[in-house]
């Protein structure tokens, strides 16, 4: 009996603590599928009688949506790939040199507000005449992606066993070969974690875009923000746009939650 009560209490507490997260996203979905009449009714309608897919169609068919989508893909993709190409070897080098202290730069970078990179780099991009292209955003997203990748990879390479690498060296392999054929395959799961987190944080980034993006070079988060100021009154398309922007991240989180949890807590606990 007491066991049963404990279970009941636990279930109740569980529902209370999980429901804000779940209900929020269900409400978001509900807003995005309703006609304006239902969205503006009081008391609010949770499950509508008629579903309005038109909200999604309106967003996807809207001018430049596809441009903004591809902009986001290009910025996030390039910033992540470049960060992996330089960050994975760097994490390896720092771990093998036991130079973890040099990673203090990355910790300070983590503390520094994003805006403080924007002012100098904005002036630099202006001076270089790069504004109006996607380059400024790709380059400044490295401020986010490179530290994530290096930080996670240091942690991974520090825990991978050295014996294999040492025997490969004795067999006459060069350092690069050891890295490429011994260390890299073992660290594959670490690279996956770095990749996922880098993609998510770059995809979500907003502050760099509002300053650096022009009409043609907006990423999706910036485009969604601009929608708020233009048609504040129609909630359906707004909610649909918001859901479209964040859906890739939500799906990635659900499918790769194990890697995400590992990456976030590894960075935090060490």
């Amino acid at each position: 009996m007491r066991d049963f009560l404990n279970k009941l209490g636990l279930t109740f507490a569980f529902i209370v603590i999980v429901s804000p997260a779940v209900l929020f996203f269900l409400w978001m979905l509900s807003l995005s599928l309703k006609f304006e009449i239902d969205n503006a009714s009081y008391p609010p309608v949770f499950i509508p009688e008629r579903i309005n897919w038109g909200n999604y169609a309106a967003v996807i068919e809207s001018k430049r949506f596809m441009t903004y989508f591809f902009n986001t893909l290009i910025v996030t993709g390039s910033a992540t790939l470049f960060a992996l190409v330089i960050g994975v070897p760097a994490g390896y080098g720092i771990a093998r040199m036991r130079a973890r202290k040099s990673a203090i730069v990355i910790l300070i970078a983590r503390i520094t507000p994003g805006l403080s990179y924007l002012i100098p780099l904005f002036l630099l991009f202006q001076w270089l005449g790069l504004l109006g292209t996607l380059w400024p955003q790709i380059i400044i997203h490295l401020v986010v992606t490179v530290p994530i990748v290096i930080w996670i990879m240091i942690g991974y390479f520090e825990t991978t066993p050295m014996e294999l690498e040492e025997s490969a060296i004795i067999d006459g392999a060069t350092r690069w070969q050891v890295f490429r054929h011994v260390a890299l395959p073992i660290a594959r799961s670490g690279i996956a974690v770095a990749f996922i987190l880098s993609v998510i944080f770059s995809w979500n980034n907003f502050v760099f875009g509002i300053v650096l993006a022009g009409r043609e070079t907006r990423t999706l988060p910036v485009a969604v923000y601009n929608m708020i100021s233009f048609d504040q009154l129609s909630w359906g398309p707004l909610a649909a746009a918001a859901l479209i922007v964040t859906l890739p991240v939500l799906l990635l989180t659900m499918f790769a939650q194990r890697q995400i949890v590992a990456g976030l807590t590894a960075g935090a606990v060490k």
Partner: protein
Amino acid sequence: MSELTAGKAVAKTTATVAAETATAKKNEWRPISYWPFVIPAMIVVMAVIIFPWVYTIWMSLHEWKVGQAPTFVGFANYLRLPSDARFVESVGHTLVYTALSVALPLILGTLAAVIFNNKFPLRGFFRGLFILPMMATPVAIALVWTMMFHPQLGVLNYLLSLFGLPPSLWVFHPATAIPSLVLVETWQWTPLVMLIVLGGLSAIPTEPYESAQIDGATPWQTFRYISLPMIMPFLFIAAMIRMIDAVKSFDIIFAITQGGPGSASETINLYLYSVAFVYYDVGYASAIVVVFFALIVALAGALLHLRQRTHWNEAGGSA
């Protein structure tokens, strides 16, 4: 004298060279050869991270509006700060916002971690659902929260009415703007505290709990005297990360209130944005950046100090 020094130097050099060859022979694992792996990343970090830091300090010593030539003014920009009412006010807002955004997620996150530390079906799936708020695109969720805060049509006032509470103006009234934003921040970041604390809880061995159960301890006693002391270091880390992120919070505030109504929710970061990219006063903005950074470091230092003191107290108490 000079001969002696020279002799010493020679001896020293020979010794070092000998030592170096010895290590090279004995141990192929000479760290220096890993430089090529690190150099590309170093160049990038210099360009996009270190260069902005240095340049910011240089700019902060100049009177400089975008489009004009910079003139050196020494510390004038810094001296302007204390008499800038809007800046002083924004520091106050930041501190209130941060204190609440650390405390609430810390309490709720610990509670959530205690719940998630039990075994139940589909735990991984629910953990995934639970961390969605912190992974979702901030602007997208800010947009939906804005709709939920709407005084007439928003779902939050409807929920209040279900509990018989009067409606609130949420982010549309100066007095409730910051607490409403903290609500969003708490909703968003409680999962991170949960994950960190859960890591701590799962590392505790089961023996203490078993003996506590035999002794007839209540769940609260078990938590207070076994779990809590063991997860203290994790709570500290969570508080530190939360503090750093809350001070810097931008997306949510910018997208929901733009610092308004008036300047009721304008934090340092929001004010900094206006100075830099609305007024284009980059010299003054850079001074704000430097002071802002110093404030974050000071807060982190205060947290560290607090932790050391509580350690000392614990030791004193048990002795």
